[in-house]
Each structure stands twice: as structure tokens, then as C-alpha cells.
């Protein structure tokens, strides 16, 4: 198996300046599609690509479930790209930023919610406390579809197994924090609290937020129909990986990344699956404790 020690072509600031942009073949020199490990200039893990490792039957079952988890949403921030005309027309805009807009409410005040371009994306599993929901909780999709999700669980569990095999150091750290987290907020016996599911979503240049820094992000794909492209590009290192059904790539999601265009002749579905541990989930009480927090919620109460 190949090992790459990659050097950056650009500074962090140069890459950050391109946040929200879509990338293409001019942004990479190498496409990874075989097993390999790659490290950055400091010797830290950049990505671990594993080709066709997830059992086909698990992929097939997971596809049938997870394709329903991604629905139109405006909450994916920079990944949705620089604000487009469609978004501008969809809301009564009061404040326009490069990557998000805030609408004017019916009472004339400015909404606190920043909305990005519409993409197909959903969240499965658990979520930590936020200003809007100041208690740990299940995501709405997971709550409604838990029974159906059971069919996708072996797929998620297999990604966890491959994570352990591919990068044991990072896995052990993530598993340790998952073990300390209340079981009510961990997906099965994995090291994951949360899964982001995207459908036919070409992400613009972004970094993932809120995942456990000592662990490692991952990307798996389930596909139906035929398509080309959809490479995940890390422009700082001018490298891309082509993750297809059965593959998984564990990578440093705090490095800026984006997808290339997805090209198809007929209907297709590219379901990308990102399993992670949300970094504040270890602060969650058990289900009963969070229930009491929700019941006794008061204005201005500290989140954690």
C-alpha cells in the first residue's frame, strides 16, 4: 500500500480566501482511488483511503435507508457555496453575506438564522445542545425512522470497524470519548454520535465544524445510477479522492475540501455518508437528565 507525505502548495489563508467556491480539475494533480495513507507536512494524518472494503450487501441495505435522510435544507453554510440568485429570491432578504443571508421576519425584524443555498442534506443520530435546542437530542429524522435505520446500522458499524483498522490511534481517542459519553447519545456500539447524509450535493470549499478534533472524519458513498466526478478535493495539497460505493476515506475534515462537478446522463444518486463524533456530546446528561433540562429551560441559561 502506498504512503504519501504531502506538502502544501498554498497557505491556509490562501485557501480560506476561496471558501464557498466550487472546485474543478484545475485544483488537483492526483486522484486517489486505491488504498493509501497520506500525511501532511507535520506528519499528521491527512487521509487514509480504503477501496471497496465495505460488504456490498451492507451498502445495498444502507442505500435504501439513507437515501431518504437527505432532504432540501438551507443550513449547510459554506458547503452550499456562494449565495446564488435562487437563494436571494427565496427569502425576503435583510442581510446578505458571501455565504449566507438573513431574512426579514414578518414583524420587520431581522432573523437570527443565517441561511445558505439549498442543498439535499440531513442529519442522523444525535445532536448536542444549541441555542435553538438547549438540550441534547435525537435528530428529527432519526427519531421518526429509527426502525428503518436499523437496516443501515451494519454499514455504519462497518465504517467504524474500518476506522479502527485504518487509523487505530485516532480511533482509540475517539472511541475513548464515546465510551465516556452517555450511551443514550451514541449510535449503537460505534464511536459516532452523528451522521451527515448528502444527496447529489456538490459541496463548495468548506471545513467541517463541531467534530472531535482528536479523532478523524470520514466519507463513504452509496451510489445508484451512473455518474462521473464528485471527487473530493483538498486544494491545499492539490489532491483529490474518488470515493465510490464500498469505499471509505478517513480524512482530516479540518482541511478545506470540496467536490468537483457530478456528471450524469440519466437519473443518479450519490449519497455521501459522513460519520463523526460531535465534540460537545460528552457533556450530555443521560436522556432523563436532558429531559429535565428541556422541561426547565429558562431564558439565558448556559448551554453546557
Amino acid at each position, binding site marked *: 500500500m502506498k504512503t504519501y507525505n504531502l506538502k502544501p502548495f498554498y497557505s491556509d489563508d490562501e485557501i480560506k480566501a476561496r471558501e464557498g467556491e466550487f472546485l474543478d480539475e484545475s485544483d488537483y494533480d492526483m486522484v486517489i482511488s486505491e488504498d493509501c495513507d497520506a500525511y501532511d507536512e507535520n506528519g499528521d494524518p491527512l487521509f487514509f483511503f480504503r477501496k*471497496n*472494503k*465495505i*460488504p*456490498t*450487501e*451492507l*451498502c*445495498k441495505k444502507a*442505500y*435504501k435507508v439513507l437515501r431518504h435522510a437527505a432532504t432540501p435544507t438551507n443550513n449547510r453554510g459554506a458547503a452550499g457555496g456562494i449565495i446564488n440568485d435562487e437563494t436571494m429570491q427565496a427569502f425576503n432578504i435583510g442581510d446578505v453575506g458571501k455565504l449566507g443571508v438573513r431574512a426579514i421576519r*414578518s414583524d420587520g425584524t431581522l432573523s437570527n438564522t443565517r441561511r445558505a443555498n439549498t442543498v439535499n442534506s440531513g442529519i442522523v443520530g*444525535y445532536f448536542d445542545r444549541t441555542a435553538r435546542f438547549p438540550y*441534547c*437530542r*435525537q435528530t*428529527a429524522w432519526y*427519531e421518526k425512522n*429509527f426502525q428503518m*435505520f*436499523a437496516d443501515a*446500522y*451494519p454499514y455504519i*458499524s*462497518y465504517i467504524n*470497524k474500518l476506522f479502527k483498522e485504518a487509523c487505530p490511534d485516532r480511533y482509540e481517542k475517539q472511541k475513548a470519548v464515546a465510551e465516556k459519553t452517555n*450511551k*443514550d*447519545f451514541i*449510535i*449503537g*456500539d460505534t464511536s459516532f454520535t452523528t451522521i451527515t447524509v448528502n444527496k447529489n450535493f456538490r459541496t463548495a470549499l468548506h471545513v467541517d465544524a463541531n467534530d472531535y478534533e482528536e479523532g478523524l472524519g470520514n466519507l463513504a458513498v*452509496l*451510489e*445508484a*445510477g*451512473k455518474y462521473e466526478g464528485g471527487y473530493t478535493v483538498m486544494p491545499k495539497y492539490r489532491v483529490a479522492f474518488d470515493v*465510490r*460505493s*464500498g469505499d471509505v476515506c478517513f480524512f482530516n475534515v479540518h482541511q478545506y475540501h470540496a467536490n468537483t462537478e457530478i456528471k*450524469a*446522463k*440519466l*437519473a*443518479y*444518486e450519490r449519497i455521501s455518508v459522513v460519520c463523526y463524533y460531535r465534540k460537545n456530546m460528552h457533556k450530555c446528561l*443521560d*436522556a*432523563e437528565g*436532558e*429531559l429535565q433540562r*428541556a*422541561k*426547565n*429551560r429558562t431564558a439565558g441559561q448556559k448551554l453546557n
Partner: protein
Amino acid sequence: MNDFEVNMVQIGSIKPYETNPRDNKKSVDKVVDSIKQYGWRVPIVVDENSVILAGHTRYKAAQILGLESVPVHMADNLTDEQKTAFRIMDNKAQDFSEWDKDLLTVELKKLADLDFDMAMTGFSFDEIEKLTQDLLDFEEPQEIITDQEFEKLDDIQSSNVRMVNLFLNQESEPYFQEMIMALRERWSKENLTDAVFEAVQRCYNDENL
């Protein structure tokens, strides 16, 4: 039936009908593509004065393509009324045709399998995507991987977290809040969750409600 004669004529010698009731702006680009890809297959129809009866879109496409001559059929045996009616009928007749979506899907798939440029069918990708949704099936990798241990895995445990979402709109939400505040006061409930549970429980236990 009259003889059907088609001649190549100078494009400058034919004239569009000034009050053509068909707006063809959106289809000109498609016809340009069609002529480029497939050549001329349908002539422009003109009357004895070289005024177009049918084929205004092809005429505009030919202008965009910078063609000097175009194939023309002259229909020189129609009355003025027939010419007017024919201009309408030639376009209106298309309204009565429908796609057999199953057969169309088969044809589109045939082209996709041949790696044909699907834009050259005149359909947008969004239209093709909608038409071919039913073809979607999980795409198996070339090499099938198995792991029976995981294929039997069914031990995900149900979490103790239970939630019910209420979906309200701008009108129902303030009304809901008003009602729930009143009920909380009436039943001495300190929070919304307990008040909602109490309300549902009372309804469930009281068949008269």
C-alpha cells in the same frame, strides 16, 4: 396529393410572416443544435410570395447559423384563409401529442448507454433526471465484498431518548402558546412538556372529550 418539391433557396428571398402568433424564442437554440447535429431534415414551408407558412424557428436558426440557403417547399395552392389556418394548425397539432414516458425512458437509456450527448435530445438534464428516476437502483461495485458476520448484525439498541416534534406555523404557534400557558396555570404544570402530556392524557382517558 400535390407533388412535394423541395428546393434550396437563398435565405434572403424568404420572409417571415409579420403577425406570426407563435413565440419561438425559447426553442431557437434547440433547433440550432438540431441542425448542427443532424443537418436539415424538415424544409421551411412558404406561400407563393415566399412568406413563411411553417418553419419560423428553422428560419431563425438558419440566420443564427449564418446559412446562405435553406431547403424550402412552396405551397402555392392555398387560399388566404387556408394559409392562416395552416400556420395555426401546424403548431397546434403538436399540443395533441403526448410522450409515452416508458418508451421515452427506454430510448433515453439507449442513448445514455451509447455515451451520446443527451443535450442533443432537446431535453434538459432535469427533465431527463425526472423521467428516468424509476431506473435508479443501487450500483454494485465490480468486485462484490462479503462479511457474513456483519450481514447478520442487528443489535443496534434503541436509545432512551424520546422526542415528539410539533410543527406549527406563524398563526398556530402563538395560539398554541396562549393555550398552553393557560393550561399550565390551570393544572399547575411548570413546563410545556408536562402540560402537553397532561392534555393528551386527559383526552385519552376521557372519551367524552
